[in-house]
């Protein structure tokens, strides 16, 4: 599970210091699908980045399975990310010089020992409907296809936690729907904790729980699915 205590983050932009997160407390149990909502600049993506250990907080702690990852040195953090956390970005962030298969294989090669990574990566790409796109480069894929590669990459090491930053933000509605279906299906099947940042109410309504951020603070925390759409 994920536990967040008194989390604050400020960044310097030129001569200014901007306080993005002003004190967040949050607990996410194993297997929960949490949606984080808020307007632009409310601190959603920053919070997600801190949960993933992509950055260090200015103050406060992020505990993943009881370990305070905000205190971990860079290399340990990399291990946490590699083994415990999968990440899906709004702009896919595939490595342009690697094929779809190689992109999915990469976390496996970096973090797992032994096993048949290639078979698993291929199978994952098949489940996201890209069996015929294994050897294509990102630039040869559509946005929806690129995001599905990114999904496969996030799940390849079977992490207990998957974090997604507006995963459908760059996609049209049908592609977005498809990606979201795949993501939630995978989450349920593997009992993965899923934290998803979105400003789309419909997507958020599919989550087990929704928190709303405003000016770097949680202003509302709702539990329970709002409708039965989707899955």
């Amino acid at each position: 599970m994920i536990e967040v205590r008194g989390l604050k983050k400020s960044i310097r932009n030129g001569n200014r210091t901007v306080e993005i997160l002003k004190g967040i407390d949050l607990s996410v149990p194993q297997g929960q699908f949490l949606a984080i909502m808020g307007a632009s600049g409310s601190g959603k993506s920053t919070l997600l980045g801190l949960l993933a250990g992509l950055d260090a907080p200015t103050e406060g702690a992020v505990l993943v399975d009881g370990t305070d990852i905000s205190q971990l040195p860079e290399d340990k953090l990399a291990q946490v990310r590699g083994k415990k956390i999968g990440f899906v970005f709004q702009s896919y962030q595939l490595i342009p010089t690697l094929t779809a298969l190689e992109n999915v294989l990469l976390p496996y090669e970096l973090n797992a020992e032994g096993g048949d990574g290639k078979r698993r990566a291929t199978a994952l790409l098949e489940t996201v409907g890209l069996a015929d796109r294994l050897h294509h480069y990102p630039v040869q894929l559509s946005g929806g296809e690129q995001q599905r590669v990114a999904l496969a990459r996030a799940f390849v090491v079977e992490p207990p936690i998957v974090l997604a930053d507006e995963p459908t933000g760059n996609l049209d509605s049908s592609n977005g729907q498809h990606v979201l279906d795949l993501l939630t299906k995978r989450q349920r099947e593997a009992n993965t904790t899923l934290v998803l940042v979105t400003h789309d109410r419909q997507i958020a309504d599919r989550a087990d729980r929704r928190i709303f951020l405003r000016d770097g603070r949680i202003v509302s925390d709702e539990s329970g699915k709002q409708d039965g759409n989707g899955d």
Partner: protein
Amino acid sequence: MEIDQKPALGWDTAAKIAWRELRASRTKFLFVILSVAIGVASLTGVRGFSESFQKTLLDQARSIMSADLSARMFRLITPQENAKLDALAAAKGVERTSVTETVSMASLQGDPVPLLVSLKVVDPAKYPFYGTVILNPAGDLRTTLTDSSVVVDDNLLVRLRAKVGDTLKIGGQYFRIAAVIEKEPDRLTAGVGLGPRVMMTRTAVDRTGLLQAGSRATERYLFKLSPQSGKVGDARGDLEKILPDGQITDFRETSPALSEGLDHATGLLSLICLVAMVLGAIGVGMAMRAHLQQRIDILAIMKSIGARSSDILRIYLLQTLLLGTIGALLGIALGLGVEWALPFFFGKLLPIQPPLRLPVRSVSAAFGTGILTTILFCLPPLLDVRKIRPSIVLRKTVEGGDADGKMSVWKRIRENQAQWISAVVIVLALGGIAAALADSMVVGKWFAAALCGLLVVILGLAAVTLRTLRAFLNKTRLHLHSALRHGLANLYRPGNQSAAVLAALGTGVMLILSVFLMQHAIVNRMNSDATTSAANIFLVDISQDEVQGVKDLVLHQPGVQNKFEAIPIVSARITAVDGVPTDQLKVKNYPKRLLSSISLTWADAVPEGVKVTQGKWWTKSDADGLAVVDHAARRLNLHPGSAVDFASGETIIHTHVVAIYKAEGEHVFARSEFVLPSGPLKGLPNVWYAAVHVPSKQIASMERALFAAYPTVTVINIADILDTVQGVVHQITLVIRFLAGFSILSGAIILASSVASTRFRRIREVVVLKTLGATRNRIATVFSVEFVVLGLLAGFVGVIFANLLTRVLLHKMEVPYHPEFAVSGISVIATAVLAVITGWFASFRILGQKPLEVLREE
């Protein structure tokens, strides 16, 4: 949470990931490989050329002595010495032959009037070891010179009114004149001899019985080294031990113009090689830097999916190593190709031969340098990998104190400790490579010092300028034209490469301009040294009352320049040095017999062609003083203050050494080893030696005219030898110019590619500007402003350091330095122009790219 300690990424997996990336974007990597290749190619080419040229040059220099080393003695070698020389030949492959010189009388068959001739006894099977004896009618000395024939100087035919085919009587035996000697390669180093040259074999001279024990003959042993003989200096040491009273000389001492030329060539070629190496390294470094900077986004993605810094380090180290290796191999192929191909195009112009075998030394030096510089220059950007925050995949923010400029210098130094250490390692390693590659320690040392100085100054200057520029822009922002404002602002934008480009350009300008200035000064100096008016005819044995007449006659010959150097010669012997009588004197490789036949001369001011190296020349004709030529001083252990006693006939002269000098062989004063003020020698019997320059075509007619009026004056013709010396010097200047041109050109290409390597970081900017409606012209203007400032700044610092380095090196080489303001000014402007042109050229494709293509890749 349990995170088990994961072992480091395996090398094989790292290699696999590195290889995949290489394979995927071939064109981008091709650029990196080509940059490495150009650097390595220029190093291979320049070193190869320089090695092959030096070999050719040394061969020609050896021909002036006909050997690598010679030992002059006044006796035959003893059986013990002979055994030692045989052992030396067996152990180190030092081959030898002897040349005997003596005087004798010769007459034409049927003509009773004899003529004093200078006999030279050689073994035509071995002599000369280098160069050739040119005969007329043309022929090989080995077949022309037999036991029953002689070859002679043209002067002998003039004097005896003889022709080729006539029979000459020497020592009661008859010899057919087989040919005229057109060129005797070692004439400059052979003894002065009296009378025209007659060359014969040892068997022939034995038949005449002229060489009896105690006869006045000089033995010269010539030695030829083989590859296993080691260095000339070592062989010389061996010979000095075996022949303690032999006067050992090596081929570098035969002509000061030549040895100076060799020194200059070695120094300059070292510099050119170092320049090629550093320019190559800059090319490699800039390419690698740009390569890794483009990969920051990819590195951040890798980190966000769990790659550790050490994993990334491993992957990219392997990748850069592979790129470096491919580039180095390609560069070597390119360099060798040029080296092999060029003689076919320039073979007639340049004294270079295509290498017969693979030049292993220069190839391995170039390969090692290529790989080493690749790794060295990858260190700083690779170490930066640790600082890349994976969060940039979410938001490209600028963090840290760099942006507000308030972070203290010390904090920055502490934060960038690894960078500083790697910078020190790079400079030390470059210095090490420089020392290993340089044949000239002086050049290596000063070169490394100038390089470090320049880097410190230019990086400091870059920081100060950029800060000043920012302050200036903050004040004047809105008054400036927007394109100018944007261009200037680009210089200090976050993540810019201004400092790196400045360092690369500035170093490049310094190196290229130093090569140009050095070659300019040295070529000028060598051309003025080897003027065509140097004396090429020596006139020997002119009596006191003939001097004026000979001078008038010679100067009235057509084409003879109005310069007639003459020195009086007084025969004397040295009786004591520092109070020690001659027979108890300990001398180093100086035949004692020479002490009893010394040629003294007088001069009341420093004569032409003489350079005082220690002490001071006298100013009054009756001063107490003695000047000694450097090699005699060394062998007799004389230094300023030493007391020397001479005896000439009944006259005893007590004097003290006041000056040690160097003599240029082409001047007549080189014929004397001891010079006194005129006072002490007044009234002593003397003859005169003279030297004059006569155009080659006029020499024969001048000899005839001189013989008609002054039959006892001997003419020694060294015109051909001087032609050889001038030819070699000319070739040195030609090759220096060629190699300097080559290194300047390849340097410019490398610098251009360094500037071009910044292009990838511009892609995003161009796209944004285009999206906002900027035209190509507008974008090109913005970039031009940036490049002009970089070019001017780098050019300015580079020019200053080039002049400093040239000044120091020329001073060490004893060549005058004159500041070249026009060249320096042009260099500054040319740097700016080069920067702008390559900037445009590199951005051309980016400017034409559709923004969507780039955004899609984002």
